[in-house]
Each structure stands twice: as C-alpha cells, then as structure tokens.
C-alpha cells in the first residue's frame, strides 16, 4: 500500500511538472496605439505555423524575420514546420472544440481554402489587418486582395506575398519560340508530343491544379471577369466544354491521363527527371528559387500563356485564441515592411514569391530604390514582367473552387 501511494505521488508530481506553463498574463494592448502593441510583444515568443516543405523558404523566414524580430522587438520566432496546412487548421478547430483559450498557434500562413474554413468556424482574430501600420502599403481596394479565393477578407487576415500561375520549361530541351502560348496551343502541343505533358490533379490541397483548370475555363469562355460572381447558368453552359477540352487530349498526357501528379513537387520531379517537359510555379522569380534548391535543372525558365494566368495573394492570419497576439501582430506588420518585401522577391533569398504590398504606395526614396533594385534582379529564370502583367487575371468566385474540383473528377478523371 505504501508503495502504491508513493507511485501515485510520483505520478502526480510528473503530471504537475509537465503541465503547460500558463503564459505570464498577456499584456494588454490597444491596436490603435502601436507602441502599446510593441510593448506587449516585448519578450514574447510568436509561434508561426506554416508549411515547412521548402528548405529555402524555411531559411528565409528564420534568417530574415527571425533575426529582425529578435533584434528590433525582442520577439522570438518559433517557426513550426508542418507537412500540410490542414494540420494546423485541425489544431485550431480542436482547440475550439475543447474550449482552449491559450492556443498553441499565434500566426498561420494560409490560403483561401483554409481561410474559408476558419472564417466559417469563427476562429480568426478580427479587425486587425488594416490597423497595423504597414497595412498603409496594402491596396485594400484591390479585389484580388480584399477577396481570398473569392471569399471576402474582411480584415481577418493580412497579405504576405503574391503569386501568379506560370509554367516552367527547360531551355536546354526546348526553344522559347516553340512554347505553347494558350490552352488551345497546349492541347495541340501535347498531342504532338505524347506523354510529355501532365498537370496537377485538381482537388483540396492541390489548388495549383484547380487553378490550371480554371484558366482553361476562362480561355474557353473567352472572359475571366464574368466568373467573379457565381452564375449557375453560365457554369452549366461552359463547364461541359471545358471537360470536352480536357478529355480530348487526355490520352496524349503522361501515362495517358490515367494518373496525375498530386502536388507541385511531384510535377517538379517528373519535369526534372525528363519525364515531362513542363512544370508550374507561382513564384515571381519563376524557376529561380527551385534551381537554387536543386529541384529543377539550372537551365529551367518560366513562361506564361498570352492570357488567363491567374494571380492572387496569400496571407497570414491570427487565431482568435492565440496566446501571443501582440507578437503575431508585430510579425504580420514586419512582413509588410518594404525592406522585407524587397528581400522576399530576390531569388537568392529563397522565398521568391511576389510583393504583398502595392509598391506605388511606398514614398520613402530609399525604400523605393530597394524595391526597384529587387525588381531588376529577379534573375533570368523569371518570366518577363511585361508577360506577367499582360496575362494576369483574378481568381474566380470561391464556390467555383469545389465545382471545378468535383466536375474535373467526375468528368475528366473518372468519366469517358
């Protein structure tokens, strides 16, 4: 009996020792008074959950934001690398279900799919994105910014960077003149080169594939803007033509269209190992960051079609139960600093996605110079800026996301 009591004692001591340390009372701050936010953030650790599959992005985050946070604001960055953004969405949703008030997540890198989920669950810290000082650089009037995958942002998240759909080819294998420049061209090219093209299967977590199919919807219907609002009749009119388009050249695809790569990295690997001739990217530096990471050949270059290349922004959001909101705000603000916006587009820094801010809103001459200098040094693996601008279109309204994914699955993957 004595031994049992002893064992229980040890057990409860272990429990007590391991119980989570309650955060020292979160200092109060007033968002309207930025100094009070900085004071509250002083000494905090901001836990940033983000997809951690890219060494170069991880290094960029640690070396740029991590160092600056510590030096300037005495904030420690704890970057949590996760295999899939859905994992931390689940964490936040589980915390909601369990009623946890001091959540593990302070900041999250999310895109429209996850944003929609968290917004519906009402788990996002509200009314902050336009209150942080550097949001003055953000063009909140731009529908591409105030809507995320078509869903109104409503001050619940703040932009980090921009992305635009592009293709990658290997300049050692192909001549720039022989590249397809439209979806119509692409189908012809694919059947002239059987097995040398494939795309990412559209579906949850594979938005790049969905985006590729949406581009075809835009081109076939001849207009991107009309898809900005949901219109069932329009969808019923054009979607069968889109499935026709994909089914027509399905057998010309890699493995005759029976299977498709599931994400960008599988496609990069097929491309790098000479199984197919095109990959895709969303980065402003084109293939630059991928070359540096050794994922694609050094002769890889990016290009776009003449039109219908969907561009959008990606964001950071704060869960409503975040333990260190002040530090998360400081980090979200730092991300928008022109100095770091310039750093993130340079291929050698490893991030490579585009500006989240509107550079014309920056007035400080030194900062303007830094931004211009960055734009001039995107590297030779980037798509020429004028091609990017000419082909840029906004995304379709958010319900089309799942309509495209389900329609493609039923009519192209399984059907016919």
């Amino acid at each position: 009996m004595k031994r049992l009591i002893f064992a229980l004692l040890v057990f409860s001591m272990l429990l007590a020792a391991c119980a989570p340390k309650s955060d020292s009372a979160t200092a109060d701050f007033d968002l309207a008074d930025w100094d009070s936010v900085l004071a509250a953030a002083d000494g905090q650790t901001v836990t940033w959950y983000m997809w951690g599959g890219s060494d170069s992005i991880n290094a960029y985050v640690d070396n740029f934001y991590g160092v600056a946070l510590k030096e300037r604001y005495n904030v420690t960055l704890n970057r949590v690398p996760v295999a899939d953004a859905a994992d931390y969405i689940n964490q936040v949703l589980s915390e909601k279900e369990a009623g946890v008030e001091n959540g593990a997540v302070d900041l999250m890198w999310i895109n429209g799919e996850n944003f929609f989920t968290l917004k519906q669950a009402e788990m996002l810290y509200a009314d902050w994105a336009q209150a942080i000082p550097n949001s003055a650089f953000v063009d909140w009037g731009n529908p591409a910014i105030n809507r995320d995958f078509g869903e109104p942002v409503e001050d619940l998240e703040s932009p980090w960077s921009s992305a635009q759909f592009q293709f990658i080819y290997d300049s050692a294998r192909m001549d720039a003149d022989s590249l397809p420049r439209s979806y119509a061209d692409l189908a012809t090219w694919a059947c002239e080169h059987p097995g040398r093209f494939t795309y990412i299967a559209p579906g949850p977590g594979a938005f790049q594939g969905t985006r590729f199919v949406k581009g075809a919807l835009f081109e076939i219907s001849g207009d991107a803007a009309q898809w900005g609002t949901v219109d069932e009749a329009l969808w019923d009119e054009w979607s069968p033509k889109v499935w026709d388009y994909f089914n027509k050249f399905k057998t010309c695809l890699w493995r005759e269209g029976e299977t498709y790569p599931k994400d960008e990295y599988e496609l990069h690997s097929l491309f790098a190992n000479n199984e197919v001739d095109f990959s895709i990217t969303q980065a402003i530096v084109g293939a630059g960051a991928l070359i540096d990471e050794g994922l694609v050949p050094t002769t890889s270059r990016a290009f776009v079609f003449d039109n219908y290349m969907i561009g959008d922004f990606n964001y950071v959001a704060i869960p409503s139960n975040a333990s260190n909101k002040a530090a998360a705000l400081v980090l979200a603000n730092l991300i928008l600093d022109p100095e770091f916006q310039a750093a993130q587009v340079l291929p050698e820094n490893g991030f490579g996605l585009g500006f989240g801010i509107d550079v014309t809103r920056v007035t400080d001459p030194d900062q303007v110079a830094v931004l211009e200098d960055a734009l001039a040094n995107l590297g030779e693996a980037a798509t020429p800026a004028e091609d990017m601008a000419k082909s840029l279109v906004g995304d379709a309204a958010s319900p089309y996301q799942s309509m495209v994914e389900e329609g493609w699955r039923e009519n192209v993957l399984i059907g016919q």
Partner: protein
Amino acid sequence: MKKLLIWIALLAPLLTLGLFALSKGWFYPEPFPAQLTPEAFSRLISDTRTLKAIIDSLLLAVLVSLLSLIIGYPAARAIGTQDFPAKKYVWLAIFLPTVVPPLAIGMGMSILALQTGLSGTPFGIILAHIVPTLPYTVFTLAGVFARYDENYEYQALALGASPTRIFFAITLHLLAPGLAVAGLFAFLISWSQYLLTLLVGGGRVLTLPVLLFSAVSGGNPTTISALSLLFLAPPVLIIAATARFLGENPNSVHERI
C-alpha cells in the same frame, strides 16, 4: 552466397539514400550525381531545431519503452503464467489499439489532451505513445512468460531471498533477452510515431518524424534522404548493440541458466 544477397538487399536502399543525401540536382539520365557534397548533412547538424528534435525523439522513445515495460510487465506475467476466466477478453482489450485506426483514436486523444492541459506537453505525448506500444510489449513479454518457470523464484524464496533480491537476481536475469526485445519494439514504435505526436503535441513538441514528414511534403530528395538517414541511425545502432540478445531465441529462458 545467400548471406551476400541478404547484405545487398539490406544495404542497397541505404546506399541510394546516401547518394541522394550527398547530391544536389541529381536528375535522370545521369547515372551518378555530378558532385557529392555533405551540404545537406552539415546544414541539418548545424540546425538547432533538428538537433533538438533528435534529442527529444530519443528521450521520448526511451521513456516510452521503459514505461511500456513497467506497465506491460504485470499484465504479461498474469497472461503468460496464469489461467483465469475471460483471459481471451483481456487479450482483446490489450490488443484493441492495434486494430483501431490511429487517426480515430488520435483525434479523440487530441481533444482529451487539450481539455486536460496535456496537449503540447512531453508527458501527454508519452501517454499517447504508450497506447500503440503497450500491445507489443505485452505480447512479447507474455510469450516469454509462457515458457518461464516460476519454480526458480520459489526455490530462491525457500532459500530465504527477499522479493527484491529475487526480482533482480532471478526474474530480471532470466527475462533480460525478452525485456530487451519488448523494449526495442516499444522504442521503434514510439520513435516512428508521427500522427499521435502531431495530434497530441500540436506542433509544440517537434520530433524527428514531424520534421521528416514536413520535409517530404516539399519533395526535395537531398533533404529527405539526409533526414531519413538521421532517422534510421538510432534504431539501426540500437539493434546492432542488442544483436547479442536478438540472436538468441527470446522465448527460451532455460538455456541461460
């Protein structure tokens, strides 16, 4: 000849991993990497996050194996040496965690851990890991106990040895190979646990498998191979170190006297 084939079958995948880990931008149709560089390893080893993940994973796995042995020992002894009513159902209860999909129990455990404040704590993760490791330790130890002759203990008792002395001098001595195998099982299962660590740890405790899965999602063969080799090293070293025990039939306790 047969031995050589086995060695090739065992080592070939490791060599491929090694080549990938030392390469950068190694693509088909190049038969070998154009250049070998230890860059990936030096990057991982100089990264405090990776080092901490290795140490944390090791500590967790060792603690989980010890606790599994301590908790599993009485159950295994009862099942292996006694006959009692409803023994079948006790077996079933112990084996349930191996039958139910980990995701199903993981989600529940995650909520439970959040409610009890154990989420994100090493202790919570240890408890979570014990769920899948326990069936294996009990199963292995029960097999050992089935052939265990309790008369050695009675003999010692008759000669006046204290229960503590009997445990250390007789029981532990006779069971050592079986305990090593059972502990090794628990270690391996805990060491390779991804889902439960993620669900109960909520990202606050980063183990090597969590880093590995995150790297795999990025598809960089160099990083993935280097991390995989780091992941493989401790189990391989431990198996090599305990090969003396593993070589013997862990069920035969008599031969050791």
